[in-house]
């Protein structure tokens, strides 16, 4: 999509140069903090506090990573200025993966089912019910946060995976809305043909509608995966226990451990860097699709 007019219109070179500089600056500001995480994580713990203005890692070492990954004993960690209770990284990574994967799978599937019904099937109360869903989109999370916490407690689901996943497992108003818009937009013809062939509604949904909507479903799944992966307050409230603790919660807890009166920045940044890896992998693998996914939400 090149736009001819920008080339034909008289452009002042200086403005273009300035714009390029501004653009480069935006990139730099965007990337630098992430680089700084790596730089700190790769620096010697003691040097971090002394040589604060050096751009590259000071006293290059992998100790911070090793410490976070539990490759040192508690005594060694403490001697290095860390906490005895490090980040049990692999466990929290596994937990984050479990929670995000299952939650998103359930959420996408069940949302797709109901979105299909809202988009394609006629039933009494359809529009009213959908309007209710839309209203729920406006409810700030904090209104339902406390009652949901109580509910999970009463179900004895605190500190369990199902407790963390429950509220979003069957739907979120947004996912239903998103997919309904999508189903409204796709072509009826294949479904009609299947109906004439005598296929039942579930069969059409399963054999025709779902395969057609794989792009939309995976787009949505990526977005929701990232959102779930990044979620903090809810898993913090209901899943603090080690066994189900996810990465975001673990990082926050690690930060509040202040072994020397201040956080263990070297270890914290190493943990932060590691926690970015899965998101970055997803992004590299699904890069184009993820960017498109974001763009797609602009038109919901």
């Amino acid at each position, binding site marked *: 999509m090149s736009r001819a*007019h920008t080339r034909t219109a008289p452009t002042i070179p200086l403005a273009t140069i300035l714009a390029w500089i501004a653009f480069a600056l935006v990139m730099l500001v965007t990337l630098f903090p992430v680089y*700084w995480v790596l730089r700190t994580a790769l620096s010697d713990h003691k040097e971090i*506090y002394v040589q604060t203005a050096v751009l590259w890692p000071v006293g290059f070492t992998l100790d911070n990573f090793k410490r976070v990954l539990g490759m040192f004993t508690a005594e060694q960690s403490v001697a290095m200025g860390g906490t005895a209770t490090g980040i049990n990284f692999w466990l929290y990574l596994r937990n984050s993966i479990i929670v995000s994967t299952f939650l998103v799978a359930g959420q996408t599937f069940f949302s797709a089912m*109901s979105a299909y019904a809202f988009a394609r099937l006629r*039933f009494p109360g359809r529009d009213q019910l959908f309007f209710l869903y839309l209203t729920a989109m*406006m409810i700030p999370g904090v209104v339902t946060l*406390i*009652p949901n916490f109580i509910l999970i407690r009463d179900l004895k689901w605190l500190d369990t995976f199902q407790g963390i996943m429950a509220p979003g497992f069957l739907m979120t108003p947004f996912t239903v809305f998103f997919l309904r818009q999508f189903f409204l937009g796709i072509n009826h013809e294949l479904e009609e043909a299947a109906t004439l062939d005598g296929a039942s509604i579930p069969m059409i949904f399963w054999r025709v509608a779902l395969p057609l909507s794989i792009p939309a479903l995976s787009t949505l799944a990526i977005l929701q995966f990232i959102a779930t992966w990044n979620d*903090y307050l809810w898993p913090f409230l209901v899943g603090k226990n080690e066994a189900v603790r996810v990465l975001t919660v673990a990082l926050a807890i690690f930060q509040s451990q202040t072994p020397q009166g201040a956080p263990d920045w070297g270890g914290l940044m190493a943990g932060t860097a590691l926690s970015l890896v899965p998101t970055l992998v997803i*992004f590299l693998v699904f890069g184009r699709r993820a960017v498109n996914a974001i763009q797609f939400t602009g038109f919901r």
Partner: protein
Amino acid sequence: MTTHRQPRLAARREALYAWAFVAPSLIGFLVFFAVPSVRGLLMSFTNWDLLRPAKFVGVANYVRLLGDADFRHALKVTAYYVLMNIPIQTTLALGIAVMMDKFSKSTIIRGILVLPWLLPNIVVALIWLWLLDPTMGFLNQIIMGLGFQRQPFLGSTDQAMPTIAAINIWRHAGYTAILLYAGLQTIPKEIYEAAAIDGANERQMFFGITIPLLRPVLVFVLVTTIIGSFQIFDTIAITTKGGPVDATRVVYWYIYEYAFVRFKMGYATTISVALFVILITITFIQMRYFNANSSDLD
């Protein structure tokens, strides 16, 4: 007869299937959205502390809310944040989107721009907490290197809220830019060409064509970012915990503090109900004012 009957039967079957399809999401909706909302509303009429039995206190919490200077302060702080955050972020994002549109459509650049948005709020907060540390933060080293006094940033009542706004702008500007960029792609280039033939300059085209035609996307961006920024919490939970003093005690933090520090669930839910009312009002006004669904293209 049969011709009349069959469609009705089919319709009934269709409705049956439809309800079966909707059932899981309806359960999720009722259990985790609808009932909790109502339960929250009911809780706001009690003095519940989570451990002891709740007592019905009528509208006492609401009466207290009306006279609560700290709540008014929290609203003020939140509004201050939103008013700082939204205009700067949106303008910046628009600028980036236009630049992308003109200079580069590379996926890599778009990827870099959304990178901050991919990071958890927690991580973003930690990164900046470290960069902005009053004594050892890199930013202060630069400031001192340039011969200025180092700044407390998150440690001062004046700078804390603008700093938090800046952190969130960093996280969201690129993401917002991508949304706006996508919006720019939908504007037919013929319109620009026609305008160029009529002798319009870049500036006139920007304000005469781009902005009006971008309106649906802009409205969407504004509605979601405003709602989102009213609910700022994670960044504050990690960096300032509402402080220094009460400079960053936004409504969301205030609710959290009452619910999970002071364990006054009744009052905490009262504040959340108030926040809900405020948000729904703002959304409604926005939708009305911007007439969201129509662009000037229609």
